[in-house]
């Protein structure tokens, strides 16, 4: 698959200067296993890309390379033209120091499959921790009082203002994931990464989380979502990317890729995961 510029038809993507993600020929191996075999993908500012595919296809690893939780073995990733994890000096790529990597990460929020909320901190403390201590480029750190106001505002946005004082273990899975989303939003990131945000949830709790993500999709933030919720993907994505065995097999607008997949591998995958009753 070659680089394909994804056309953004997003209504609210007026702010086109932030959140352009360019992934170029990214390779990554764990030991002898090559997990990413040269991935090239562009997500436009404010775009919503949904990555689907069988487990072990490298979706999560790709997501984790975008905020440098995994170092790439080859290729590069740029956000608004700035390389992730490296700095260009002359003809050399210098690996960034920890502090600068942290600065880059504050521009990229991440939501994990199993939430990873800090269990010893309340919902509000989870949300206010990073804005107070994380180093940020161009923006001052928030004071505790500012972070608190912002935190309550964000918890209100995910419908959990009244649970601000609760510890994660006192919340349902869906509520925990909504707190995790608020936490990721607290740094006002350009890009949000979702790594199977609903896979650890009971079916009846999935929608409360998807509704929050749907709302975010219209906010102008670039979203990259790994999910198995095909109905949701069709609703919210402007690009669906199908990955298998470390490669992008096919990508395109949701209607095209779900109703008229070009590749045999894509067709057989969708025939297994989309229930017969699901009409596209």
């Amino acid at each position, binding site marked *: 698959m070659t680089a394909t510029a994804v056309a953004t038809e997003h209504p609210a993507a007026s702010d086109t200067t932030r959140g352009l993600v360019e992934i170029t020929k990214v390779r990554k191996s764990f030991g002898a296993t090559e997990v990413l075999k040269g991935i090239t993908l562009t997500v436009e500012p404010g775009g919503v890309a949904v990555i689907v595919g069988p487990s072990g296809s490298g979706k999560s690893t790709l997501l984790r390379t975008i*905020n440098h*939780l995994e170092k790439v073995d080859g290729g590069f990733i740029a956000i608004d033209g700035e390389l992730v994890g490296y700095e260009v000096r002359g003809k050399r790529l210098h690996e960034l120091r*920890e*502090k600068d990597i*942290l*600065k880059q*990460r*504050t521009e*990229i*929020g*991440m939501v*994990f499959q*199993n939430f*990873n*909320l*800090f*269990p*010893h*901190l309340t919902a509000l403390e989870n949300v206010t*921790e*990073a804005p107070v*201590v*994380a*180093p*940020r480029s161009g923006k001052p750190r928030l004071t505790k009082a500012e972070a608190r106001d912002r935190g309550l505002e964000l918890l209100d946005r995910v419908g959990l203002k009244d649970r601000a004082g609760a*510890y*994660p*273990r*006192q919340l349902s899975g869906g509520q925990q994931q909504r707190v995790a989303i608020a*936490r*990721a939003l607290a*740094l006002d990131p350009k890009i949000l990464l979702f790594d199977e945000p609903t896979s650890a949830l009971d079916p009846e709790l999935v929608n409360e989380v998807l509704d929050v993500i749907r709302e975010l999709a219209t906010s102008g933030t670039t979203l990259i979502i790994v999910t198995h919720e095909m109905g949701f993907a069709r609703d919210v994505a402007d690009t669906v990317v199908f990955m298998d065995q470390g490669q992008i097999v096919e990508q395109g607008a949701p209607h095209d890729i779900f109703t008229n997949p070009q590749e045999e591998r894509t067709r057989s995958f969708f025939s297994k995961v989309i229930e017969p009753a699901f009409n596209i």
Partner: protein
Amino acid sequence: MSSTATRAAQSAAGPASAGTDAGVSNPGPSAEQGGPRGPENPQSRGPATDYADYRLVPSRHPWRWVGTAVVALGVAAVAWSLATNPRWEWGVVAQWFTAQSVVNGLVETLKLTAISGALGFILGFILALMRLSASPLLVSVSWTFSWIFRSTPLLVQMLLWYNLGYLYEKISLGIPFTDVRFFEVQTTTLISQFAAAVLGLTLNQAAYSAEIIRGGILSVDQGQLEAAAALGIPAWRRSTRIVLPQAMRAILPTAFNEIIGLVKGTSIVYVLAYSELFYTVQVIYNRTQQVLPLLLVATLWYVVITSVLSVFQYYIERHYSKGAVRTLPLTPLQKARRFFATHAATDNRARSTR
């Protein structure tokens, strides 16, 4: 009889009521069904019973009572012998328990415990971080430290530190491999009994606490570090704010074991003739020949210290368990208060209904 049996079948559990229709038309089998299970009371009221006015009879545990009785007897026998056997010499114990020299010794014991405990755990924390670092040199230095200090008897370590002056006459601070010296001192003046004791206990404690702290850090889910890194939280803050508070739950029980061990472990510095609690009572009983009562004095003080530490342990563990349990368990004080509150309430209710 058959009509009673049918009614009994009705009043019995759910499955029996399914067969009620058949039972009415054909009393025979219904009698067989309901007969054995039906209550003897012919006045049992139909299936609408909600058992609200039934008295609850708790199940009985006769062997529990037998066990309790046996243990109570044993405890009573021990208590009786402690109280009545004159050879325990409780009068002597009471006389020396708060004697000035014993209290001085106690203060020295507490001082040694506090200083070597604190320094030991700080050094242990550094060693644990070294062991978990990416540098092979730091890892192996930390490993070797724990290996050496865990494999030598504490007694030998003590004597070695105290006799350091024999091995190295002078201790100096300068630039290695040159003749530059900023500072030089006789080893024997630097290593007093107290210094040798603190040094020996601290280094030994550090070797053990390093492993305890490392174990605690490893018990924290990797996802926590990932989430913190993804949020741009700086490394030091990740350790102190995210990982350590969660590691504390695993660290605390073992750490308190170590500190309580250390309280009694300080008694080993008697080999340096350092007048802590244990050495003090030895000096006294060598003079008065009241060996057992004076050992009892020391023992009782160790019991007191350990008890106080256990209370601290309970409340510190409780503090760090917030977030790990849905609701914190009540403290013994809260339980007692609730017990008296509810019992007062039931008493009042009982009185008002009468």
